[in-house]
């Protein structure tokens, strides 16, 4: 069966050890987590885990059912098929000899990204967006040479949030 990328959003207890219960279960059942982000929600007793996993539909259903069985997990939402809002934050450290700086700054501006640090031979650009936009920037910066990339992992929210 075809594997596809799933955006799994889990509302969990904000307690020590819960993250390792969730990630341990996903990896134990044989799935690789491609990206992961965790943070508290509007209710401080709960956290939101957003995990990107690659799995076929049957396997994905099995992961979500198993996650549901964890006592610390309140709710699992699959944000894959929805027109969910997806964001990720990326920092690019790009090679920037003096004569090419303005080009890089221009690219950053086009993508509404910010220059957050300026070194003698490099610029650091901060960008948020969905996958397509960030991929586009990355491709353009490659031409200059990217020294380092750091990404936060995706977070996602459904558009018509009716969640408790």
């Amino acid at each position, binding site marked *: 069966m075809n594997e596809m990328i799933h955006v799994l959003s889990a509302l969990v207890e904000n307690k020590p050890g819960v993250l390792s219960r969730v990630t341990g279960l996903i990896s134990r059942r044989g799935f690789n987590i491609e990206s992961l982000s965790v943070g508290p929600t509007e209710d401080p007793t709960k956290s939101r885990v957003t995990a990107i996993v690659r799995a076929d539909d049957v396997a994905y259903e099995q992961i979500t059912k198993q996650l549901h*069985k964890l006592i610390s997990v309140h709710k699992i939402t699959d944000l894959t098929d929805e027109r969910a809002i997806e964001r990720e934050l990326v920092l690019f450290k790009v090679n920037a000899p003096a004569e090419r700086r303005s080009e890089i700054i221009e690219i950053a501006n086009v993508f509404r990204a910010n220059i957050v640090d300026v070194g003698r031979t490099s610029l650091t650009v901060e960008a948020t967006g969905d996958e397509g936009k960030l991929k586009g920037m990355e491709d353009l910066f490659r031409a200059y040479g990217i020294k380092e990339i750091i990404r936060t992992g995706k977070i996602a929210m459904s558009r018509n949030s009716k969640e408790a």
Partner: protein
Amino acid sequence: MAKNTQQAASTVSIEGAAKGPGSANPKQGKELTGAQAIIASLEAEGANLVFGYPGGQAIKIYDALYDSDILTHVLARHEQGAVHEADGYARSTGDVGVAIVTSGPGATNTVTGIATAYMDSVPLVVITGQVPSTAIGTDSFQESDIVGITMPVVKHSYLVQDVDEIAPTFREAFHIAKTGRPGPVLIDVPSDIQSQVTVFDYPDSVNIPSYRPTYRGNAKQIRAAAEMISQARQPVLYVGGGTLISKAGPAVAALAHAANIPMVTTLMAKGAVPASDPLNFGLVGMHGSKYANRAINRSDLIIACGARFSDRVTGNVASFAPGAKLIHIDIDPAEIGKVREAQVPIVGDLRRVLENLVQLLEDGEVALPDTAAWVKQLDAWRERYPLYDKRLDESAEQIVPELAMKLLSEALDPADSIVATEVGQHQMWAAQFIDRELPRTFLTSGGLGTMGFGFPAAIGAAIGNPGKTVVCIAGDGSFQMNSQEMATAAINGAAVKVVILDNRALGMVRQWQKLFYKGRFSATELDICPDFVKLAEAYGWNAAQVSDPAQLAAAYRTMLDTPGPYLLDVIIPRDQSVFPMVPPGGRTGEPIGAIDTQEGARELQALEGGDR
């Protein structure tokens, strides 16, 4: 008014209320240390038996235990033994089993026991002492991250961080352990928390919004199931361990008889429906009968009742029961669709779902299926491919294991006995030949296949069921995994009868080597060591050895008539294989080694060289 309360109480009990006094316990409102609160919590839950082993970080709990008039503590001789004993107690009584151990090695010694209980959905509460809160994470003496180590094999676990949390944590732990799909829960209590003081306030209820098992099946799905059953011509009830847990045996049998549907059972479901029921076709799977395996494989409808399509049942999933539709009833939604897609999935408590289903059939809401020809066919297969035919062994000079099990089965009163097994060939012979009529009277490690489980489990069952005959069927390999528990049995008056089917081999592995590894018996032949009779006598047990088939029945009688624990070392040939057998990954409908009475022999043409 009084009636109302009672009714309320009985509904709650299904939902996992304390078996004991709960908040009405005599220590409620008193100032207690954490350790005393642990003991008070166990008492409030109605526990009266705990298994365990003390140590530095559990010493305060043991000190508090010293004052309890309610709790009896059984000192095991190894923490693994303690957990299996608690497990055997839980499997045989239906109550939550409790074990208490210390930190570090005490805690890590429980892992196999917890994993065994997890795989077979057994409710346990395991309490581990932990190093003081401030020392956690520093590699201090006897520190182990037992919550982390056991995470994959517990239903839930707690690290208690505040003495006031002890009471609510215990209430939750018992609730979680015994509701929904049961399982082990671990509570890790740092030793500083054990000495802090709290006002004991045991709650009666729990509030876990993220944990709400579904008990009632969806009415539309139940109706769809009834209609599917009514259309079936070759239906089979595939009965699993969930049937015991849900007390659904009578409901399964009611459905079987209402609609004339044959039943086959998994290893875990032995005893869920009586062996004597003519519609019970017994064990399916790797060492199930040819007729039971054929029945499920050639069925056009499988009604899975608290069963999970283990690979030990299905063999090769792709060729398993190719023509069958599936109605899958389970309280755990994750089991439905895990191995095989269900046309009618029903999440709920099996007993309630089946009762609703039977109601629909009995009310004439749907027509009953016409299964007469199918049941007749199964009866014919059962006749033709029996598990045993004594003509094959008439001239045997040595004890034949199948016959040894049949004789033992006949010597036991099914209403008054519990049989536990270790893991290996003897386990499969026991499953094939020991007839059980009642639930919770056959204890075996099905999911994890833990050698060393059966003997301590038998001890737990003996202590939990005074007056019943408890027999452990063991292999000479498995018994040595926890033979130190002979002391526990002797000291605590657990009159366990251990029958060792002694083949001087790790027989089951040796059988695989014989069949699939060209007879290269790598590390599977055991020497005649120890002398089991002397070993038993060293623990103050009575014991005997028997090797003559003519003496076996008398040896069983002596064993059963002698008060106290007893070991009978039954010498069997080394080279016996368990048949029939579905080779791993093979097609279950066509096992090797079945007896064909028309041919008067075992069907071993598929095997090189053959067997006996």
